[in-house]
């Protein structure tokens, strides 16, 4: 193998590993469930923020929309997931509006503390027009 072919082999190998890194699952996941209708909360906009501890400003990390299963894969990359205070904002008012209904909660913001970013965290939202709950899952 000549020198160029040898170097090319290194670049191709790196691409392969980069693709693998891009498909690692997010260490932070969510799941929206519409318990009023017994269906996943699909097509709900959710926004993930990280609190800047120095300025106390919320920095927007990701905007996403839940899929047909009420999930939103790829919320954050493993390497970006640091210890800190995060906020998940669920656009519940818009969600129920799209279904032709009102909702007591115009939006839901769940603020939580990540102390150990090596763990997996699941922050679901179980929702109806007049109630909601959340818990820390894995």
């Amino acid at each position: 193998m000549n020198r160029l072919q040898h170097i090319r082999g290194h670049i191709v190998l790196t691409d392969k590993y980069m693709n693998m890194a891009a498909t690692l699952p997010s260490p932070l996941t969510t799941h929206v469930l519409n318990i009023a209708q017994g269906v996943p909360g699909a097509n709900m906009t959710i926004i993930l923020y990280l609190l800047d501890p120095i300025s106390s400003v919320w920095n927007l990390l990701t905007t996403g929309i839940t899929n047909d299963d009420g999930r939103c894969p790829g919320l954050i990359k493993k390497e970006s997931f640091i210890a800190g205070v995060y906020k998940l904002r669920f656009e519940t008012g818009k969600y129920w509006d799209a279904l032709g209904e009102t909702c007591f909660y115009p939006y839901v913001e769940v603020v939580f503390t990540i102390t150990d970013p090596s763990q997996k965290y699941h922050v679901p939202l179980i929702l109806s027009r007049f109630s909601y709950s959340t818990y820390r899952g894995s």
Partner: protein
Amino acid sequence: MGSVKGPLTTHVLNTGDGVPAARMALSLHRLDPHMTVWSLVTIGNTNEDGRCPGLITSDAFTPGMYKIRFETGQYWESLGQSSFYPYVEIVFTVSAADQSVHVPLLVSRYSYSTYRGS
């Protein structure tokens, strides 16, 4: 005030220990629709029964968007425990038809729920 219930009430329950969440700090805010900023309406603490009477008067309880912020992180810290949530904010809409609104919070170290009661 006496025994007259206000138009907006709350009740905080510690579902981890099966007791009312006593002495939890909380605050009520109203969204100023023109400025889109939150104005503080009341600051208080829950009593031994986890309730906080006198949050707002009927006259002041005009239609709009409100927020109750519960200092859950401080509460668990005072019990010597950590919690997943540093605080909980419940944002809700009050319409002209709403005479009596109850916004309870059921909270443990790793979960919480709320519902609209009356």
